[in-house]
């Protein structure tokens, strides 16, 4: 599976984006997000970005007011996931221009689309910013 889910949560703990690669019911999702947010948001800058949770790991990184949390299997490479998060942020930055929480809120569907370009079936398939963004730009032009 590799990546199990990707969450974006603001520092008040509100979910701003949730992408799951395995099916969870709404109740399971609510519980999971609650637990994770409690665990990760309490940590400070001096602490490491990896948290063990249930039977997997969460790799997270904070950008301004937004936390990017990625749930991965135990043998997934933590540093690669951190790079992935950074790549995601850079990609969104290039598209939105200085991306902020509001951009993601108002363009949730687009953010999902970008993630879909990057990750399929829980494994990372695309890591080139140009390749990720070209279909989105094409579609923007078309509409």
């Amino acid at each position, binding site marked *: 599976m590799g990546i199990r889910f990707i969450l974006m949560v603001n520092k008040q703990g509100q979910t*701003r984006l949730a992408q799951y690669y395995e099916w969870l019911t709404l109740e399971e999702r609510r519980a999971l997000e609650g637990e994770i947010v409690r665990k990760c948001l309490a940590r400070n800058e001096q602490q*490491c970005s990896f948290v063990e949770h249930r039977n997997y790991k969460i790799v997270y990184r904070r950008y301004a007011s937004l936390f990017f949390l990625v749930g991965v299997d135990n043998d997934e490479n933590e*540093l690669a996931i951190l790079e992935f998060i950074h790549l995601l942020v850079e990609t969104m930055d290039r598209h939105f221009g200085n991306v902020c929480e509001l951009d993601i809120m108002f363009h949730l*569907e687009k953010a999902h689309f970008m993630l879909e370009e990057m990750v*399929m*079936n829980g494994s990372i398939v695309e*890591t080139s910013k140009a390749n990720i963004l070209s*279909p989105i730009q094409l*579609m923007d032009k078309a509409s």
Partner: protein
Amino acid sequence: MSGPSLMDSLFQRTLEDLIKGLRQQLIGEQAFISKALEEIRKEIKSPDLSTKSTALLKLCYLSNLHFHDMSFAAFHALEVLSSPRFSHKKIAYHAISLSFHDSTPVLLLITNHLRKDLTSTNEFEVSLSLQCLSRIANVDLARDLTPEVFTLLSSNKLYVRKRAVAVVLRVFEKYPDSVRVCFKRLVENLENYDPQILSAVVGVFSELACKDPRSYLPLAPEFYKILVDSKSNWISIKVLKIFAKLAPLEPRLANRVVEPICDLMRKTGAKSLLFECVRTVVTSFSEYESAVRLAVGKIREFMVDEDPNLKYLGLHALSIVASKHLWVVSENKEVVIKSLSDPDPNIKIESLRLVMAMVSEHNVAEISKVLVNYALKSDPLFCNEILGSILSTCSRNVYEIIVDFDWYVSLLGEMSRIPHCQMGEEIENQLVDIGLRVKDVRLELVRVARDLLIDPALLGNSFLHRVLSAAAWVSGEYVEFSRNPLELMEALLQPRTSLLPPSIMAIYIQSAFKVLVFCLHTCFVRGGSTAGVSASASYESFDDLSVENGAGSTVAHGQTCTSAPITNESIVNLLKLVELALSPLLGSHDVEVQERARNLLGFVDLIKLEALNSSGQEENDSEQKGVEATKIIRLVHDAFSKELGPVSLSAQGKVPVPDGLTLNENLGDLETICSDIELPSSNTFSFGYPSEEKDVSSFSNLQIKEDSGQSNESTSLLAEHRKRHGLYYLPSGKSEVISNDYPPANDPALQGDNNDTASDLVKLTAESLVPKRKPNHSKPRPVVVKLDEADEKPVAVKHPESRDDSLSGAVRDILFGSEDILPTSSRSNLPSSNRKGKEKQHMITQVESKENVVGDGNSSSRRRKDHSHGKERRHRKKNAEERNETDRKEKESSSNHPRRQKSRQRAEEPLKVPPQTSVIPDFLL
């Protein structure tokens, strides 16, 4: 509800309006959302697809971020999906991948939509439907759409092909038969040089190889090539993951791969790739000394880095190494121990695991001591983490590493006094378990239990109640080791026991019963014969009394026993105390407490009537009158003095079924009813009479050493308590120190110099990890009673591999022909007339030539490789697609006979390698 009017769709709120409204709403978020949902329900029924799709988009937003159910819209999503407009389709696919799952009822209806889009000429439509398939595919979808996916696997549009490759993983998982169709093309993509395709296909294989690595061994040459050639760190990491799984299965492969991995480790600048190399080496190449050394060097760099992430990963990698190379941990112990006081709890826990990995029977005492000091200083969470790991490490394999049980028992006592300690249950289990298993430690155990019981402050801490219950049980069961049973009785009956929960209260009363019987027995039954000695001794002089019970003064029972100076007078007082303390409990609401209190009081009444009417009279007199009482006491005492021991969980199974007893008759029906009741977990123990513990003579050489100093503190606590609640205590002639308050259960300030504990630990591990054998155990390790298999391996290790997994079975069919792997030896023995044998050898031919290529790698052989590859592929494909007899025959006749002859000779060469490799397929590197 009427359908939405034109006005509704004209003035429909867009998603943006919804979000803005949500941010500015004044009526409360929930109210606003339910109003919006109401609108959406109306709009989604609109015949206009634009209105419908906007409604769907809004619904997706609310579902994704505000947890609102959107399953009601499943059918509407399908309607939007049938729209010819791409923007509608996009929304529909988005909604479907967010909300559909295996039990969505309309899933059946989506097959044709997907098929249509998969064959569309618009690559973005194809991509959307592939993406969707990767999220929602179930068995039916996977089966029905396999042909389309197969076609797309060789699409000339990279954008589409990459997604088709990625979707294959889900299709294989759901419908393993699709492997027969698609696997060839998937492997072909492995030779593609486009990084996009390669990244996708390697990702698929790394997932597949996780589940069943053995099936993918034949692809090792391809992976090797990618590993050596790859420029992308992402791809390298994935390939390393594959090799981490493959290498342990095939030593020759490991030999080849270890060098390139080390090269990569030396060269790469990317920390993620570097860490993956390190992890691969320490998990799968731990026999390669030089590689491990290199990796350990990198781990060290990680651990001393400022970045907490690298530090954590370094420690984590170190704990992987620790299982095989303990020297690595001891080499880096300073860093590890320094990390124990890191600000990050995750790093602390990692380093704790490593410290525990260093524990051996030589240093367990020192390390535990330092860790307990750490526990005193830490926050509650980490404190219990430390205590938990000490407890589990020390009790591992029936206290394997403990030599000095006296020390361990007092450590348990000490741990339970740590303010944050919440490990009561575990400590309770171990105290009782050790009491049952280790005879020689019972003296110390009773002393520790007494110290715990006697301290009134501990009763207030609810986390300690479980420990106290163990202490009460131990001191009741082994009361013959107690120096002062009367004092014990006071502790068991002290007023603050009312703070205990009823179940533990019951244990206290039962223990009080045992202690009382013991006192009476000593006084009347045994005391009668040695009346002269004990009668003269006074109660107050207990503490300075030194009792020496050597081998010479063994009593008839074989039990060591204090010649306790229990007088008639003290017995009378004792009985009074029992009555006073227990009479209120007769009205207890808890049946257990009530019943036990009643038992004990009934017994006291009996004894009083029979024996103590003449308490003031001569010894002889009371002896005559108390004949009956003596009999009772002896009876009860005998009942209590039967020794309890650990009982194997499987003990019941060993009892032979008596003849004529049919156990199954009439109870067969119960099986269905009780089938869901599980067996108790293996670490619980039960009580009973052990069969192998008849020999009690080892008690005779026990020595009771008097050490008045160590018990001073708790005795003074009791003294203070006695002052306050004098009413409940036996009369005492001494004057005592006055104190108005309970002292705290444990004062961390008393622990004094904890500051340099880190350096202490470094020092002591330095000493103890050096393999010099310090003969510091002055006494031999006592016997620990072990029960047969039940203790050794509680749970049979389950084999994680599922051999007959249908997916790996299918993959194997493709890669190995229609047979499973055969050992080389048996293969070469196959008669050449055997059809299957021929097919195999045909395969060997090609792989042999591949072997050459990787071996020398010059250009001419590379060409030959490509050539043979192509042929192999052709044959394999034919094999898969048609699989008929004629094809096979044709192939055999067309294949190169002379080559086969040669290859057979070559194939025999590897047979000379050591026998262990014979199980491994020959066609590797």
